[in-house]
């Protein structure tokens, strides 16, 4: 690195000398600009736009959400620009509301269901990809890319149509297969079945990424390990456990962690399908935050919900952040 800088200084200073005799009038500004860009200031100048953006657009909101969570901030205070501190009132109200705990529990179970289905399904698809004929693999990968590429809201819309009570293809198929009870069955009548539809949707969208990542891991397992296992007379299951699973475990950890982060924060699918309904039966923490804050203008209370969400995410993130820093130290 330092070699570059040393080499650059003479290279940078020699050519300008003749140039400055040509345009003498600008030399003052020219030198200033040159000094600015060739000296130690360069990295800081280059980093300035990104740093400023991150601090203003991310740093400040993090501070602000904590401050706001200790304020009484409804529509009245917002329009008058009044600052009314109310200490822990927002938290007290939220944490003593049994509905909040119900929603939190639902969010946790929902996240767990999404993560288990996505990672489990993705692992199965990745292993399947290894064992199919070449052309089948191409077809399968194309289908996965299609599913992955579909915009979230387009997918949500299509799922609503497939699960439609009257003309949805799912009910029609089930009736065709002999499950006549599904004739005009409403999937959005209870919170539980609504959540089930959302979990299916998220799993369908999430599996491609997991499958491709794990398939890359499967390909990375050296063939001689399988040969050795074969020579030792290991069964399929033993081979999977001692060879494939050992190689895949770090990757499985990563995709599990990422799915956990993504699924905990899901808003789009939940809101677009029934806006947390029926009767709040599919409400999760992100929709609660939106409802409390934006829809009903209790910004202080909503900020408290946000802080609780952030704390939960920090707990989830800390481990991964440490891992990344360690990687950084190595290279």
């Amino acid at each position, binding site marked *: 690195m330092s070699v570059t800088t040393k080499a650059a200084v003479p*290279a940078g200073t020699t050519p300008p000398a003749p140039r400055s005799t040509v345009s003498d009038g600008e030399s003052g500004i020219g030198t200033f600009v040159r000094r600015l860009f060739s000296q130690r200031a360069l990295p800081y100048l280059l980093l300035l736009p990104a740093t400023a953006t991150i601090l203003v657009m991310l740093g400040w909101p993090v501070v602000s959400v904590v401050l706001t969570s200790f304020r009484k901030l409804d529509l009245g205070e917002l329009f008058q620009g009044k600052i009314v501190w109310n200490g822990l009132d927002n938290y007290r109200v939220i944490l003593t509301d049994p509905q909040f705990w119900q929603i939190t529990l639902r969010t946790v179970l929902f996240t767990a269901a999404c993560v288990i289905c996505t990672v489990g399904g993705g692992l199965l698809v990745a292993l399947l990809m290894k064992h199919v004929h070449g052309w089948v693999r191409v077809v399968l990968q194309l289908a996965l890319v299609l599913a992955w590429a579909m915009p979230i*809201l387009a997918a949500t819309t299509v799922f609503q149509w497939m699960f439609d009570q*009257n003309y949805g293809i799912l009910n029609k198929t089930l009736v065709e297969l002999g499950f006549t009870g599904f004739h005009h069955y409403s999937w959005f009548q209870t919170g539980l079945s609504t959540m089930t539809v959302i979990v299916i949707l998220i799993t369908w969208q999430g599996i491609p990424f997991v499958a491709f990542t794990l398939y890359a891991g499967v390909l990375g397992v050296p063939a001689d390990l399988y040969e050795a296992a074969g020579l030792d007379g290991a069964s399929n299951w033993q081979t999977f456990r001692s060879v494939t699973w050992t190689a895949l475990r770090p990757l499985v950890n990563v995709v599990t962690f990422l799915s956990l982060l993504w699924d905990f924060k899901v808003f789009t699918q939940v809101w677009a399908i029934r806006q947390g309904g029926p009767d709040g039966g599919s409400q999760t923490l992100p929709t609660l*935050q939106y409802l409390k804050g934006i829809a009903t203008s209790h910004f202080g209370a909503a900020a408290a919900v946000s802080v609780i969400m952030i704390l939960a995410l920090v707990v989830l993130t800390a481990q991964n952040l440490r891992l*990344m820093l360690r990687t950084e130290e190595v290279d």
Partner: protein
Amino acid sequence: MGRTKKRLASVVGLLVAAVFAFPIYWMVTTALKPANQLLSDDYDLVPLGVTFQHFIDGVSKKGFLNSLENSLIVALVAVAFALVAGLLAAVPLARLKFRGRKGFLLLVLVAQMAPFEALLIPMFLMIRSFDLLNVLPGLILVYFAAALPFTAWTLRGFVKGIPVDLEEAAMVDGCGRWAAFRRVTLPLLGPGLVATSVFSFVTAWNEFLYALTFLQDTSNVTLPVWLSSFVSVFGVDWGGAMAASTVFTVPVLIFFLVVQRNLVSGVTAGAVKG
């Protein structure tokens, strides 16, 4: 692995492929089906006729073109900003030694993990105080900030992947530092820039929560918000909804096919390793 086993796996593989492709098949065929076929109790997996009426209706529906335009503007401008600021930050972080480098790296890393969804309330209050509610720049600003850490971090990885010797050789040949970067490193960064911008574009194109919150005037929304209100307001016009969804999907599909090779490495590089 026995032959029958492989055949069995292939059959299962095709079934799985069918499951994953089906919603897209269903979206496109529904959009093409004549209206009377949509609302019937018959079991019809194949369209009995083809009509483009839903596309014509859907596209001419109030607000569609406007929201398409909004989505394009917001996503493209935010990505362009993120690309410029991200590249400016990526180069020193990858190539230069300076005091505080580690601190900047940490800042970018931590920013990348920021739970944007949980910052809705302070963002709303901030954008409101900037007087940027209901106009596109407010949304652009948020998408820019959301895409920036990922962009900077991923591009840093790509810059590091290009041997610095190449630039040094160009400087020995008489190029200045900037010329060496522009003529040697920048062209080699092409694929990285494309992959990074596609990811940021898709994220912005998909974004729903902030679009729903910031653009409260129903005549001025982005495509996801328009589509969601379309379904709840005209719940029965599934042909139109599917046609609009198809139009919504096409740009992303094209992008995905372009960067298909870098898909996984792009995401995992940004999220997991350096």
